[in-house]
């Protein structure tokens, strides 16, 4: 007897859509996913829409408007299992740079009629608004990890997405440490694993796309980063990217904000 397929919904909040596209990028696995799961709501892929409730909701994007703050509550009500995907949904994204500034000034520069713009003063993670069952990190998320999360959901097991540093991924891959070996500043020691250490594999320092690791000691890392030539302004900026509003990154950038 064929069991009913679980219903999947994909939701977009303030974001670039890149993480949703990771689902389409699954390519080889996509048809298999579609065979195992009923894709009930996924506007990036299809206009067809099946009503809730949903067994699994993937939520992309951050909350930046009062409307979205309300909408995410409805998504939560409709979802048995809610997974946030990507830096916007898990920390507020690059648009959380507004949290360090006056968003009205930004709007005045960008829009001809800023008075048409109704927006919140901050960009915040989904988990700041509703209970989240699992957070998948990354800017963008890794398709490999997304397939792992969906596979784990279907099997009723815990996904293998370790929250230790990127350094562990580098060492398992056999990468040379670019900071010690080349003197290249790297956020790997304070950054959540998951990307497979892409940048250090190409001799670049880690940019922190996956946000803070489980126990990030950002003030301690700033000491060697400073010795390698990063001044106060550079230290402020290095943490103000896709995960600027993640706690450990925000605090360390503020420490260097004179």
């Amino acid at each position, binding site marked *: 007897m064929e069991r009913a397929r679980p219903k999947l919904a994909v939701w977009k909040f303030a974001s670039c859509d890149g993480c949703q596209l990771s689902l389409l990028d699954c390519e080889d696995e996509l048809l298999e996913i579609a065979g195992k799961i009923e894709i009930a709501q996924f506007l990036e892929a299809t206009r067809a829409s099946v009503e809730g409730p949903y067994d699994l909701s993937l939520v992309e994007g951050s909350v930046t408007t009062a409307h979205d703050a309300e909408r995410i509550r409805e998504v939560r009500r409709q979802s048995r299992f809610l997974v946030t995907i990507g830096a916007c949904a898990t920390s507020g994204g690059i648009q959380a740079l507004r949290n360090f500034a006056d968003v009205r000034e930004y709007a005045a520069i960008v829009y001809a009629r800023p008075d048409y713009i109704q927006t919140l003063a901050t960009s915040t993670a989904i988990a700041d608004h509703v209970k989240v069952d699992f957070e998948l990190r990354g800017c963008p998320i890794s398709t490999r990890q997304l397939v792992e999360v969906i596979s784990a959901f279907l099997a009723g097991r815990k996904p*293998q997405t*370790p929250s230790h*540093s990127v350094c562990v991924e580098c060492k398992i891959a056999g990468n*040379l*440490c670019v900071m010690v*070996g080349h003197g290249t500043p790297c956020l790997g*020691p*304070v950054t959540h694993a998951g990307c497979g250490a892409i940048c250090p594999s190409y001799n670049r320092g880690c940019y922190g796309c996956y946000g803070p690791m*489980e126990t990030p000691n950002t003030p301690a890392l700033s000491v060697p980063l400073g010795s390698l030539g990063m001044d106060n302004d550079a230290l402020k900026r290095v943490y103000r990217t896709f995960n600027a509003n993640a706690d450990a990154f925000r605090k360390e950038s503020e420490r260097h904000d004179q």
Partner: protein
Amino acid sequence: MADQIDGAMATLTVEGLEKLLQAIQARGYRAVGPTLENQAIVYDDVESINDLPRGWTDEQDGGRYRLLRRGDDALFGYSVGPQSWKKYLHAPKLRLWTAERHGDDISVAPEPPTGDRLAFIGVRACEMRAIEIQDRVLLGDLYADPHYQALRARALIVAVNCGQAGGVCFCASMQAGPRVTEGFDLALTELLDGGEHVFLVEAGSDEGRALLALTPHRAASDDEIRAAAAVIERTASSMGREMRSDDLNELLTNNLEHPRWDEVATRCLTCANCTLVCPTCFCTSVEDVSDLAGERAERWRRWDSCFTMDFSYIHGGSVRASAKSRYRQWMTHKLATWIDQFGSSGCVGCGRCITWCPVGIDITEEVRAIRGCDASAEEPR
């Protein structure tokens, strides 16, 4: 030192070393050794001695590693690099078994151990000791790791006595070097100062003697034997670091609440680099993965570290949640409780944990700080 080197020593020229490598390969070994890659000396396949980092050396300090040109053509003129031989013997990632569903049945196929015959070229004394320590851990109890066992039993060890000490080396303090004393098939000492570039060779096993017999060599002269002893003596007396090691078990276990643990925790990144570069750290995690269809599952083992939260996770949370407790766990295990558990220190004085720590935490300095104000010694007993 000189009296330890007996008369059964041979001398190889540089060409002779190439012939030895060819003999090793001809006997079916896959030779791996130091090579130059991405501005570091790392272990990889070596086809010929031309793959060795000829004329290079390194400069190492806490959180810093740089290669430099030497003024000669030394083939082993550097200290240990970022990797150790555990990369081969105790692989970073290993599939343990694969399970497949066939209708209502499930079949489980264990991963067979690899049949590789590895020849490790250029194993230093500290690394030889590290391999012996991992032997004790992975083979020495009721359960022997079959993957490690298969590789280890077939491995050929061509050791090298160190011709110079690196900036973070302290093997002499740990009685782990710089002279290789046991466990090797062949041990080389590179001689650069006598006008001719040669290698003094000592055979430590029948396999080593057989290989030497297949290689053009001559009997070593007394001068060469003396010169080799002097090289090792010079290395022993120029260690970049030192650490008193005769009382570490008592010192550390009596100071588990020393304020230094809080201090080092402010600097420690808990990134796990020290454990992953350590040639004796052996901890792994086991992860199960399943496919979307639920038809196939695999169990993988990968390197883990006592610095990760998952490492001590039990129902309800991690036992060692603070950086302080994790650093203390690592250092007290390595230097103290390892002795209770396995009968020796877990540290061989290679210095990798110092060099490859991004913030340069120095285990010898941490021990000195605890020794400097030994909290237990100050209290009346």
